[in-house]
């Protein structure tokens, strides 16, 4: 038997106190693990998911809210902006790419995003299956949406009001799934993409309706009666024409008579990404009407000089708000950091309690084990071996606790990420970080410190005195 085996046997001998030490270590490590994973993944996600987006233009309001809603799809938008104003910005020579977003509905918590094919270009997304939308109420779904809801090409999904599940369902306008995105992007994986016109039509065309009745998530009344004006010109029965595979899909030009200027020609969606820059501008031009609204515009600059100039141009010369994802993400993370720091203190307090518990447990156990230790010396165990046995007990307790805590941490994170709405999930509980090894190391260190004094006492066990009963 080696020292670890003897230590493990001793731990099993004192199960009650050992379990307390293990549990306290596990809770402390579990909290630290959740915080580590959360902060690391949030920082990474905030950074990665906004990569390539230099600026977000939306309605006036909180810039963080604008970033969260348009980049991370986590919060409600600040409001809508005029398509005409957005078009002016898009035409600015400093803008390389402008991706329009129109939000307002969800499918089982997954946001339905009205946009155009430039969205795929911006995020570097590719279709794993099917094709891009070619007409209204056709949708491309993210891989995670497919995984969660078992969707297939040709399936019909019904959007609901609002940006989280539970709103009024649009029974009258189902979306037909025409494409599935490959797993690529943690945000896009959880989205449902369609064209802008579908979102406008779903909520009544803004060209003909009062914008305040379609506030897209802010004070959207689920019982709104949707204005159907403008929808008539799009009546081409998608449900009937898209219930088949891509190969037998009628050509868009024949099956989807272009609905004048309300949305772009389906043919344009099939252009290669390399021409999407021009495409975006042409789409916006086609949409044309100054009365229409979108939620926001994701902008990529043509050159670095725009960084200093373009946001000022937007904020000072228009009624719109420009927010930088980089700046707002950093600000958001620093705000989150305060909460994370507080929880870290709590976790360290629990770890300290674990250390105290293990110390008391080992120290008290020495009284009962003094003969055991003395007998081990008579059997040939050196002082160092007794020291090692007690240290090993402390380390084993905290090691088991730390490993258990990491498992708890991942389970807790899984529960957290599962309980949040589909497209707000930025956390992956299955990710293992190298830093988690440090948590185990910290646990082991605490075990060593907690066991040090009892171990020194064991080291100094006076064999002769103990065996003589003096």
């Amino acid at each position, binding site marked *: 038997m080696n020292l670890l085996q003897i230590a493990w046997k001793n731990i099993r*001998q004192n199960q009650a106190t050992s379990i307390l030490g293990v549990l306290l270590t596990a809770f402390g490590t579990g909290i630290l693990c959740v915080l580590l994973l959360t902060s690391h993944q949030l920082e990474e996600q905030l950074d990665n998911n906004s990569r390539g987006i230099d600026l977000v233009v939306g309605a006036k309001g909180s810039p963080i809210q604008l970033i969260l809603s348009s980049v991370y799809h986590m919060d409600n938008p600040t409001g809508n902006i005029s398509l005409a104003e957005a078009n002016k910005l898009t035409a600015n020579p400093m803008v390389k790419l402008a991706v329009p977003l129109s939000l307002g509905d969800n499918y089982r918590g997954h946001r339905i995003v009205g946009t155009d094919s430039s969205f795929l270009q911006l995020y570097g997304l590719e279709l794993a299956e099917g094709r891009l939308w070619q007409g209204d109420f056709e949708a491309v779904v993210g891989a995670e949406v497919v995984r969660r809801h078992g969707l297939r090409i040709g399936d019909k999904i019904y959007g609901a009001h609002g940006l989280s599940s539970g709103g009024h369902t649009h029974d009258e306008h189902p979306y037909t799934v025409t494409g599935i995105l490959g797993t690529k992007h943690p945000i896009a994986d959880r989205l449902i993409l369609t064209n802008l016109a579908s979102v406008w039509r779903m909520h009544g065309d803004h060209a003909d309706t009062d914008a305040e009745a379609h506030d897209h998530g802010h004070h959207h009344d689920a019982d709104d009666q949707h204005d159907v004006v403008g929808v008539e010109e799009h009546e081409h029965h998608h449900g009937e024409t898209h219930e088949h595979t891509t190969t037998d899909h009628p050509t868009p030009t024949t099956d989807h008579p272009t609905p004048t200027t309300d949305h772009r020609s389906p043919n344009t969606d099939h252009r290669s990404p390399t021409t999407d820059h021009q495409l975006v501008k042409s789409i916006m031009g086609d949409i044309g009407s100054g009365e229409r609204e979108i939620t926001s515009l994701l902008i990529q600059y043509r050159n670095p000089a725009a960084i200093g100039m373009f946001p000022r141009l937007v904020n000072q010369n228009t009624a719109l708000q420009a927010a930088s994802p980089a700046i707002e993400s950093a600000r958001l993370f620093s705000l989150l950091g305060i909460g994370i720091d507080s929880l870290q203190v709590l976790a360290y307090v629990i770890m300290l309690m674990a250390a105290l518990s293990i110390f008391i447990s080992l120290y008290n156990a020495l009284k009962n084990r003094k003969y055991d230790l003395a*007998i081990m*010396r008579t059997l040939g165990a050196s002082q160092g*071996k007794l020291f090692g046995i007690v240290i090993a007990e402390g380390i084993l307790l905290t090691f088991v606790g730390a490993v258990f805590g990491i498992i708890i941490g991942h389970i807790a994170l899984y529960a957290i990420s599962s309980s949040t709405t589909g497209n707000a999930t930025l956390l992956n509980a299955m990710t293992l970080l190298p830093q988690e090894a440090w948590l185990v190391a910290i646990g082991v260190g605490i075990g060593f410190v907690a066991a040090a004094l009892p171990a020194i006492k064991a080291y100094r066990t006076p064999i002769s005195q103990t065996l003589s009963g003096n």
Partner: protein
Amino acid sequence: MRVTSIWTEYLKLAEPNSLAMQDNNTEKVISLNGVTYRYRGGESLHFADLEIPVGRHTLILGDSGSGKTTLLHILSGLLKPDTGNVTIDGQLLYDLAPRQLDEFRGRRIGLIFQEAHLVKSLTVKENLQIAQGFAGAKVDNSRIHEVLTLLNLDHKANSYPNKLSRGQMQRAAIARAVVNRPAILVADEPTASLDDRNTASVLELLLNQAETSGATLIIATHDKRVKTRIAHAYELGGHLS
């Protein structure tokens, strides 16, 4: 320092002549020369020189407080004397470095106490395994099986001490003491709390195991019943100063 303790050797069962021959022709397993020990309170003991040949089982007799246990601990390498030399199995005990002394004790000296003192968290077999391991030997399960079988404890090999009777615990402690085939088997008051029948039984076991393992048995006791079974005895006389 004043000499306050002396050895009184007497022969009970063996003939003086045969003992003398044995002494002359046999290698010494224990040798004490000029050993003194001072307690913390200042009292000191001076032990008379002693030589015990291999195989001569010996009693160390004396009243309570006469220093029997102290002497056993000095012989076992558990208590370093203030002066003098202790040689066990040809090895000057206190010339060894602490770790070497620990290993030597584990390999060459088997200790048995009034109480069994088995390690509570380990089974009988594991108690014997750590005895082998701490002595620096490889765990030899066949030897453990052999010893436990000899002591009629094989069926209790995987039992924890709290599942054993008092007699079984005592036998397990003897098994642990002899498992490494020690040169000397040192027992401190092994029969103090036993009735006559169990005293006879434990003595029988100790003698048998000492013979089987080739160990010289040294028993410190004030129990007069033990004197009937061991030929040689040294009485620890004198008083503490």
